[in-house]
């Protein structure tokens, strides 16, 4: 690595706080070609700048996802233009669009096939909560019922700029990871049970490991006032 290059500067700034190296010693070491850094930092830095998303379009939002990869918005500026069609080579899943009950098992299955470390961006109102189709009988009310979502990206559809911003958030999140403590690194590949589509509904309705129904803040269920005859 060339001395004084951008990479070297970055490493010197982010040195581990636990190690007492004064600036002079570090500068000397660097001159001799030794960089002192944490494995965490180096690992996260390289990870976050080469996120490979999965080519995985579900509905309208997918078009904006593609648009964010094309020349005008150019996702490759952030190191993640390599869209991979196979889950085995991807580490970011952008759930872009409405997840229906028929599709949800496949989404979980694809997620299970992805190698660690892996992240999820829930893109669009539909993937977050069901969006405009929430009342529908066939729409899953948020992919976070089955999978752990890292970044929620609201919008219908979110603009390509927003996709880039969510990627930035994800990069920040990756940079904060602690390799030793993170379950993604300690426990091996995370696999979640695939729900079963019974024709009318999904069984089970959610995965208690990652999601549970919100509790009523008042403790008591709110009873709607009785309608008086008009």
């Amino acid at each position: 690595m060339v001395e004084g290059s951008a990479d070297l500067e970055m490493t010197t700034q982010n040195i581990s706080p636990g190690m007492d190296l004064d600036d002079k010693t570090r500068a000397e070491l660097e001159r001799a070609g030794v960089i002192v850094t944490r494995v965490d930092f180096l690992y996260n830095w390289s990870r976050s700048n080469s996120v490979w998303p999965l080519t995985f379009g579900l509905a309208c939002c997918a078009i904006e996802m593609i648009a964010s990869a094309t020349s005008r918005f150019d996702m490759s500026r952030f190191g993640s233009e390599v869209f991979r069609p196979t889950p085995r080579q991807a580490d970011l899943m952008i759930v872009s669009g409405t997840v229906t009950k028929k599709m949800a098992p496949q989404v979980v299955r694809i997620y299970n096939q992805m190698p660690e470390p892996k992240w999820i961006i829930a893109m669009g109102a539909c993937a977050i909560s069901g969006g405009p189709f929430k009342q529908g009988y066939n729409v899953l009310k948020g992919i976070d019922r089955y999978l752990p979502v890292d970044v929620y990206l609201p919008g219908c559809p979110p603009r390509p700029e927003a996709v880039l911003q969510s990627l930035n958030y994800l990069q920040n999140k990756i940079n904060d990871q602690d390799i030793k403590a993170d379950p993604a690194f300690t426990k091996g590949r995370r696999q979640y049970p695939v729900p079963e589509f019974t024709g009318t509904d999904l069984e089970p309705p959610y995965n208690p490991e990652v999601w549970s129904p919100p509790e009523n803040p008042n403790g008591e269920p709110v009873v709607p006032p009785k309608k008086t005859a008009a």
Partner: protein
Amino acid sequence: MGPHHPSTHGVFRMDVKLDGETVVDLKPVFGYLHRNHEKLAEDMSYLASMPFTDRLDYFNSMTNNWAYALAAEQLVEIEVPERAEYLRVIMAELTRLVNHVSLVGFFVNDLGALGTPLLYAFREREKILDLFEQASGARMMCNYFRFGGLRCDVPEGWLDRAREVTDRFPKFLDEYEQLLCENEIILSRTQGIGKLSRELAISAGITGPMLRASGVAYDLRKVDKYGIYDRFKFRVPYGEEGDCYDRFMVRMLEMRESIQILKQALADIPEGDIMGKAPRVFKPKPAEVYGRIEGPKGELGFYLIADGTPKPYRYRVRPPSLINLTVLRDMCLGQKIADAVVILGSIDIVLGEVDR
């Protein structure tokens, strides 16, 4: 194949039976994006389903809006002002350009030319999306049409910008045609592949560019003359063989005709109102109507049954993609598996519309 497959244009599955590499049987499986569009619309007021029509075929929100507005306007007989009619035509033709240009990009992508043509296509698409955004406030989900007109007038200077985009578009088309139309690989991968005969196309109810590629010059813009299409001069391109190459070329030629329409419309657009006298509360008398337009993918129709309440009793969409998809099996039998992908690409489906 599918539902997660890079070239199924969304979440579409094909059960393919193969003999070596030859397709001997094929069964399309849909429903992975069924979003209860029709059922939801029956439970809300007429105008409230307008934004949902955007999400049917998410490339062409403007034409979807138009078809729905056309159906609802028949229910209460609203006059649409002149300027609104012109703007509608302009928006619809711009949408057609967006759709065809992205379709060709995806189609060539399916052929294996990963990236470049698609990037060219999306570059042009962005220019038109900017126009949509300036007019309606959203890039894709425009929600711009109202019963009896449009939601708001276009901003100042918009028409000039639209003229500029229209004038520059043919240059891009020249470039695109030079790049693709005589490309040896494209010729050999598409000519004679996936033939659809004229008789089958008519009896299966195929519409749009697919029907025209099979040699039937049928265009609702000429047949129905809805809106003010009778005022414009344009030609209807059609093919002879009905193979993938014809379908591809029909779309390329249609873009040129759209530009002709756009030029005429942008030249004679009058000043004036953009909203007719629509009733404040939309509560039509019991009636049954069917409004249809020539969408970029084919005949898009909305069938409404009103029962005197503010909500439709029945709301039915005739999606061109779904009906064009019904002949997929006939076109794929006897072809190679790699060609099945190309044939699917040439049909031009959007799953939001197929499954609704």
